């Protein structure tokens, strides 16, 4: 186990992220609605910095009862982080590729102890 310091608890607001690294392993740590999530910062597509892009809610189609198209909207619950190289979107809560949920980024355990947030980069 290799614990790497991320931030003091309360230091990261919802939507903040930190990129930490240890011996060449880069990890993106997100804070979202009082929870922390940590993933490999290497995009599964071409190796871009997957965790360094925008946080965007999932886009959803809105259909009318007759199944005609009304509009699109942003999800109120599903949030993605987006690789800034090509726009690959990852589910913030699972690390799964939104367009191909069978694939996911490697995740890392978060350890909160003595007022500090650590990530276990093993």
């Amino acid at each position, binding site marked *: 186990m290799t614990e790497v310091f991320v931030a003091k608890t309360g230091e990261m607001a919802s939507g903040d992220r930190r990129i930490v690294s240890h011996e060449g392993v880069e990890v993106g740590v997100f804070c979202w609605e009082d929870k922390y999530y940590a993933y490999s910062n290497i995009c599964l597509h071409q190796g871009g910095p997957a965790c360094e892009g925008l946080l965007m809610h999932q886009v959803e189609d809105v259909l009318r009862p007759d199944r005609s198209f009304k509009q699109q909207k942003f999800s*109120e619950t599903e949030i993605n982080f987006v690789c800034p190289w090509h726009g690959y979107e990852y589910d913030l809560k699972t690390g799964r590729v939104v367009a191909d949920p069978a694939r996911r980024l490697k995740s890392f355990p978060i350890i909160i102890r003595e007022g500090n947030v650590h990530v276990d980069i093993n």
Partner: protein
Amino acid sequence: MTKTNFNIPLSGDRSMPIEGFDTSLHLKHAADQAKARGFDRFPIIDVDSHHYETESFSEILEYLEDPVLQQLAKTASASRHGAFGMLPGNIGYQDMGGRVARYPLRQLEKTGPEAHRDITLTKRWMDALAVDIAILFPTPMLNLGLHPQIEIEVALSRAYNRWLTEKILPNDPRLRSMLYLPFNDPQATYEMAKEFAGKPGVLGYMVTATRNRAVHNDAYMKTYAFLEEAGLPLGFHASYNWNDQTMAMMNKFLSVHALGFAISNMVHLTNWVINALPVRFPKLKVIWIESGLAWIPFLMQRLDHEYYMRKSEVPSLTKPPSDYMREMFYTSQPMERPNDIRELEQTFRMINAPTQLMYSSDYPHWDFDVPSVIYDLPFLSEEEKRAILGGNAARVFNIDIKEKLAKSI
């Protein structure tokens, strides 16, 4: 002037303030890949990359030779924005709502006085990708062939070519180009080709594929003959035109981009082969740029299928269209990545990729490819990887490159 900050609008009434952008940091992982794979061992030539010529539009306008047109253009640019009013507009959302952040953030990147900003920014991404030599193409001007005023295509392309060959290319040997030909005017095309041949950094010529001109028109034969004699390759650079009647039926950028780039080159390549231009100009090197690869096996099979039944329409062809297509050259980006890698392997086999395919990044556009997309393919030998990443381009363009020029690794 470089801006100092930008606030990217996000979902849910949020926004993300950004105070700077650095291409080298943006592409650090590409530099890491280059180091891990040993890209310092062989040259990499990027046959299709881009700059944003409209960021230098005021400089380009100084090269406009028609004083009335120059005054019109300067006024339009100053009173509105950039090249607005001079270039055909193009609906599109390349940046995906800011998800591909280098689009909105490019304006924040700082450069020093040591070189033209265009050169500095280009070499930053080249070094990160370990690209030694890049062939640069314009961006907004890719749609100049749709301008209804043919004389403006001629005048602006000439001004751009002069700017490029006088202010950019002579100042760095790593930057090259295939110059824009004003294809809607065949005589001007011929004169442009003759005038700029031999200028520093000019490796050949490029025709933008989004236009409504048939490549087999007899008016172009003297240009093809000149290029063949001069040993200068001719490339057709694809794009999309959402105003095209067929494209206008589609409502998503994804649809128009996916089909538009392929269709524009499919039309010209079909005319090129079926009108026996490979027979008439057997030594002219023709390159099909930025349409990906999956369309080529499709077109080979479609044209061959009809060829065997309708041979009487194409008496000059002595072999099926696919055989001629296998003698042409293709750039790699945006290389499709099917879930079943055997599909890509089959495409490489069908186009004789080890000798006919040339790596291209298309950087900084949204669907760029890093060199590892070629280098990591499991079905290529080391020799084939190096050929596609640089060796084939060195042969096609007669580039004498023996040493590594990229700096970051």
